[in-house]
């Protein structure tokens, strides 16, 4: 591990050919991925009658910000936004903590029936939420938890994906280091906190990102659990902008989408740097 030093993989010399190929590929990716995204953004600045036209209009003419003001004025946007933040923060925290602890137990601690427990955990990924909602609705309703944050959060807090991902990561760590730490007398929690976590930073960041996105976009369960802006998240609130008979005005819907996606992208920009920082930090400790 000492060879990690200060030099990251990306800093090494590359042939000019590879670099050119890299840029060409990047340009291509940008094109393919960006076009539909661009369409969402462009539509959000269009007047209603300019959305469905032929030939397609790639630059809004005239450009308008009306759609954004429509979003903010026709639905209680700040309240939904607040709920989204609370729900996502609570769920992500719960999932990350539970996921790391479960993965740690399933990878580095020894106990009987470990692989059975692991299979039970990942089997939870095979149960689609369409079949759990009615049963859970009944239960949560009995508890009187509808229209509460805990009613939305707790039923979703069990974590299978993250347990799996982190277990995989922990198992890939060099055994010598773990054994060395154990010999030094590190207890299980200290081992996790001081040795295992610092070396797993990039994966933890990836896990967190994906969890945040999934919780931010959670729709069906919060929709069933909340009846108004007291607890409903943005994804539920935005559907008020859609019309169910004879065509939706997509301008405001797209504006709402842009407003919903932006915070997550900013978070991504911040966290993806952490991914790399984390590596060097881990390497130094290792």
């Amino acid at each position, binding site marked *: 591990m000492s060879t990690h030093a200060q030099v990251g993989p990306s800093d090494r010399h590359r042939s000019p050919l590879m670099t050119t190929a890299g840029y060409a590929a990047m340009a291509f990716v940008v094109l393919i991925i960006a076009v539909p995204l661009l369409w969402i953004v462009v539509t959000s600045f269009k007047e209603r009658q300019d959305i469905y036209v032929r030939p397609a209009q790639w630059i809004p003419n005239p450009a308008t910000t009306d759609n954004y003001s429509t979003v903010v004025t026709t639905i209680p946007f700040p309240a939904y936004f607040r709920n989204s933040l609370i729900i996502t923060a609570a769920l992500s925290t719960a999932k990350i903590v539970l996921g790391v602890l479960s993965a740690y137990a399933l990878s580095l601690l020894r106990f009987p029936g470990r692989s059975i427990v692991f299979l039970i955990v990942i089997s939870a990924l095979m149960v689609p939420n369409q079949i759990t909602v009615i049963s859970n609705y009944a*239960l949560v309703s009995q508890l009187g938890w509808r229209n509460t944050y805990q009613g939305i959060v707790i039923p979703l807090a069990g974590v299978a994906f993250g347990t799996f991902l982190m277990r995989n990561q922990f198992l890939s760590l060099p055994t010598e280091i773990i054994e060395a730490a154990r010999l030094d007398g590190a207890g299980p929690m200290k081992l996790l906190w001081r040795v295992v976590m610092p070396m797993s930073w990039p994966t933890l960041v990836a896990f967190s990102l994906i969890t945040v996105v999934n919780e931010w976009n959670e729709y069906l369960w919060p*929709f069933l659990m909340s009846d108004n802006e007291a607890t409903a998240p943005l994804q539920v609130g935005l559907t008020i902008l859609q*019309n*169910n*008979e*004879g065509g939706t005005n997509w301008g405001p819907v797209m504006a709402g989408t842009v407003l919903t996606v932006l915070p997550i992208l900013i978070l991504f920009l911040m966290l993806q740097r952490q991914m790399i920082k984390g590596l060097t930090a881990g390497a130094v400790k290792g």
Partner: protein
Amino acid sequence: MDKLTRRGFLGLAGAAGVATGLAACAGTGSTATGTASGAAAGGGSSKVIWWSNHPGNSKEAEQKIIAAFQLANPGITVDLQDGGKNYEELAQKFNGALAGNAAQLPDVIVASDVTWFNFALNKQLAAVDDLMAAAGLKTDDYVDALYSDYLFNGKHYALPFARSTPLFYYNAEMWKNAGLEDRGPKTWQEFKEWAPKLQATIGSDKIPIILADGTNYLDWYFQNMAWNFGGAFSKEWTPTASDPKTIEAGKFLQELVAMKVVKFSKTPEADFQAGIAACMLQSTGALGGTTKNSKFAFKTAFLPGDGNCPTGGAGVAIPAGISEDRKKSAIKFVEFLTNTANTVLFTQATGYMPVRKSALDDAGEKAFLDKNPNSKVAVEQLAKTRSQDNARVLVQGGGARIGKSLDQVAAGQDVASVFAALDKETQGVIDAQIKPKL
């Protein structure tokens, strides 16, 4: 012994803890000691909870009506809650609520032409006749065709609210260029004669008529075509898609496809509004949007054929599971919601149909219709409407089932065998799901 109750099969521990082994061994305690009744968020006699999907972006209009109601009934408040983005979602949510605690049921729900019946059939909706009578309110002013849509075993299970019908929209300029009279076709045969003329003048990259596809309610619009040929999807509880007349209508649709004068789309209104299609069948609920979106003058007309326009849209219903006190407040509110003044208000805000006969005599409504000739056509067509076929609206999953068959017909499959298969499926559902409960 072989009959389960919902509390049983949903593994609801409640206090008894009779749930499945796993739920018991979860033993999180919190699940077993549920405080069912105390924390209920449901309405009471002084509070009416209304689940709406705000048809036609009508939240604002709904709130206005609620404000007026609260002013007139100081003891009762109405809580308007978001029931989903469409009728299906609202039904899904209500089905969830039925599995939950009765104290938390809403007091009023919006139910569409295809969602109300399964609730009524399973005794989850209160009959409005009795409630109206008990409250001293009358139902005879509702437009007959719209009110009788909710009739089942001699009782009505909803009041008409956001009601729509299909409407014929056409591009006036394209009509003129093709040398057609400034009106809708009287019959589908006439349209078939017009279509080549339209095609000749609009150019090959445009289409004479655009229709919704089978996943977007073609089944609703096609009823008009089927009825025109003397066919139907069903007569009472007998499927009749394989009746020669219905088959003829299917073949007619295929002829239009073969002539390349019709296209099917997920969003027909978009093609029409962009000036790519000369005409379309679309809900009256789309009138407001189409007016705002189109850069050209369009007109509306009755559907082809006389008296062959299906009704549609949604009503408001009251769950059977709430207390009698709550029902009393709820009926008071839904009657107010659909009274003459409010149906006028709601209609003008959305483009839905006035559900009261007296609304047509309302001075404000008259003035509004004079100013909006397209809406006037839609309202006048109300007199020509006919209740939909059971196979589409009452038989569970009917819309999707018929839509699938129509997609197959449009794709060129043999009409007779497609419709025969449809009848068989419809009959299967009637036998399994409806007959035992009638």
